[in-house]
């Protein structure tokens, strides 16, 4: 899974160059993937480790950096790539793009362009599951920047008050856009804030997929057991800039180089070999992932654009047809 996410992100990054005006980069018309593209490169272990424990019927809310969560929840790569290309066959019919990628058919309720906006939606979905007597749970991903927004406090308080089946996952990549989160965050961070709201929390190395998997597994067991919400604080690192055209020159080169040493795929590969696996197996998986993404990319390239009529559908039923 991590290799598939990495291959997807690498392709998306390549295809997005020249796709948005930001950080001194000018947009042209040549990029296949246009608009702001937020990459989760280097954060793959969090998505893979948590979603390992999710069933198709479980629900998930994500962030603006949501490709990895979507893939790990089981979404189809071709439909996802079509969405990034803005094509009619995309998971959202080309209406959302990268920042709003969603696949409700696998319980992935959407990436979100607003920091922390997924948290209230996640607790509402969990509340509905509980009221309806469902055994499904909700995994709610958000970043370290989100813990400084009000909905973080509101949603944790809500989930704890009603004992809702939700696993909060703070995917801490250390950066709030171009500001190091530590520079603007008081106190001891996500886990401490969760504990203050009586939400049990665990902190794990988010680049170690086994640690994420073990941590999430234990917490989800409690969540599924009706013990109420839990929070997983996964410490990882944002390898790329805030958006794909951001060269992130504001980072200290030495600290950045040191952080890259903890690459989750390198770590997992080394562990695999250490446990007696063959390096060739990994190479084969890398090739397989690349082939899958290449095929998705080709399919997206060949897919038709949405018809203009689609701009007027799925808005609302009441008064449909009245646009002015």
């Amino acid at each position, binding site marked *: 899974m991590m290799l598939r996410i990495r291959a997807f992100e690498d392709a998306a990054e390549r295809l997005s160059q020249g796709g948005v005006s930001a950080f001194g980069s000018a947009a042209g018309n040549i990029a296949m993937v246009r608009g702001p593209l937020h990459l989760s490169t280097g954060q793959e272990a969090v998505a893979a480790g948590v979603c390992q424990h999710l069933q198709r019927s479980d*629900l998930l*809310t994500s962030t603006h950096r949501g490709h990895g969560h979507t893939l790990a929840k089981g979404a189809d790569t071709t439909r996802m790539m079509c969405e990034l290309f803005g094509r009619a066959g*995309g*998971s*959202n*019919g*080309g*209406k*959302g793009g990268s920042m*709003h990628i*969603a*696949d*409700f*058919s696998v319980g992935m*309720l*959407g990436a*979100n*362009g*607003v920091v922390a*906006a997924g*948290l*209230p*939606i*996640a*607790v*509402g*979905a*969990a*509340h*509905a*599951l509980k*009221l*309806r007597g469902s055994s499904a749970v909700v995994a709610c991903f958000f970043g370290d920047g989100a813990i400084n927004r*009000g*909905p973080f406090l*509101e*949603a944790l*308080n*809500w989930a704890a*008050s009603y004992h809702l089946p939700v696993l909060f996952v703070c995917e801490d990549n250390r950066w709030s856009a171009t500001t190091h989160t530590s520079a603007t965050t008081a106190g001891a961070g996500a886990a401490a804030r969760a504990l203050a709201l009586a939400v049990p929390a665990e902190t794990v190395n988010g680049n170690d997929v086994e640690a994420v998997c073990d941590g999430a597994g234990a917490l989800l067991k409690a969540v599924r057991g009706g013990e109420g919400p839990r929070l997983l604080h996964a410490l990882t690192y944002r390898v790329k800039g805030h958006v794909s055209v951001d060269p992130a020159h504001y980072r200290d080169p030495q600290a950045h180089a040191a952080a890259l040493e903890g690459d989750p795929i390198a770590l997992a590969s080394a562990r695999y070999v250490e446990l007696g696996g063959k390096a060739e197996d990994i190479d084969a998986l890398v090739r397989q992932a690349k082939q899958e993404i290449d095929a998705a990319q080709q399919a997206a390239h060949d897919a038709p654009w949405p018809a203009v009529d689609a701009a007027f*559908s*799925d*808005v*609302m*039923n*009441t*008064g449909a047809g*009245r646009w*002015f």
Partner: protein
Amino acid sequence: MQATNPISYAQAACRALAQAMQDDPAIVVLGEDVGRGGIFGQYAGLQARFGEQRVIDTPISEATIMGAGVGMALAGLKPVVEMRVVDFALCAMDEIVNQAAKNRFMFGGQGRVPLVARMPIGMWSASAAQHSQSFESWFTHLPGVVVVCPSTPQDNHDLLLAALACGDPVIYMEHKELWPLSADLQPTGSALLGQAKRWREGSDLTLVSWSRQMHWAAEAAQTLAQQGVQVDLLDLRTLWPWDRDAVFASAARSGHLLITHEAVQVAGFGAEIAASAAEATGCRVRRLGAPRIPVGYAHTLEEAARVRPAAIVAAALEMLA
């Protein structure tokens, strides 16, 4: 006609909601103090009847009340989301604007948000600047939501049922000074979203209003009739979609259209109606709303923000002069 079994605007909504909850187990209510009936009594008795699982008392967390409503809707429920007053709904603007209203379109129709967000508007005497506002025009500007502003107990009953049945996110705006207004309720009433109601027929001037202001428009029309001016008086009831056919037909007949609302006149919904009707029919138009000032506490200051019947009469006569 003598009222025989009058019911208040608040009770009418409560009766409609109880009926809908009885018929549809997916409907739940969430908001602050709803278990005790809501501070205006518009949820009286519902928790006792349907239980605290379906009539959910929440923390004072407007953003999450609204956002959770969106999540509940995506997971199969039909939430009625209580914001207490529209002024507090401002704490949930992201959840209304970026989440509830956009969800269906942005995700390519994968989900829908059948949610009714109740956010009472309007002056509520001596409630000052943060509890007196009328923001209906803000939401008419927002693709993806229905906007409803009932003015009578009957409409509050019928339109709440229609809102609950429509499947779209609805911004449902009751008026705080209308809660005690009482009238007989016709069980067969069935007001539709997007359908205006003619309160009075006339051919000299078309007068359009909604919500609390509708009652002052009616007083003004009565006064004008005594002066020989026959007003065609329309209660818009739903601001999006709004009944363009009814307004245009009336304006085309009378040639004069006056819109009055309690909200600030600048960029109010009256401007949209005036512009649309003038484009469509070439009628003369005028709008009359509040000055662009915050509502003051002292009654003298509050009065400066109210558009009384006398002002409507004066505006009508000036138009026809």
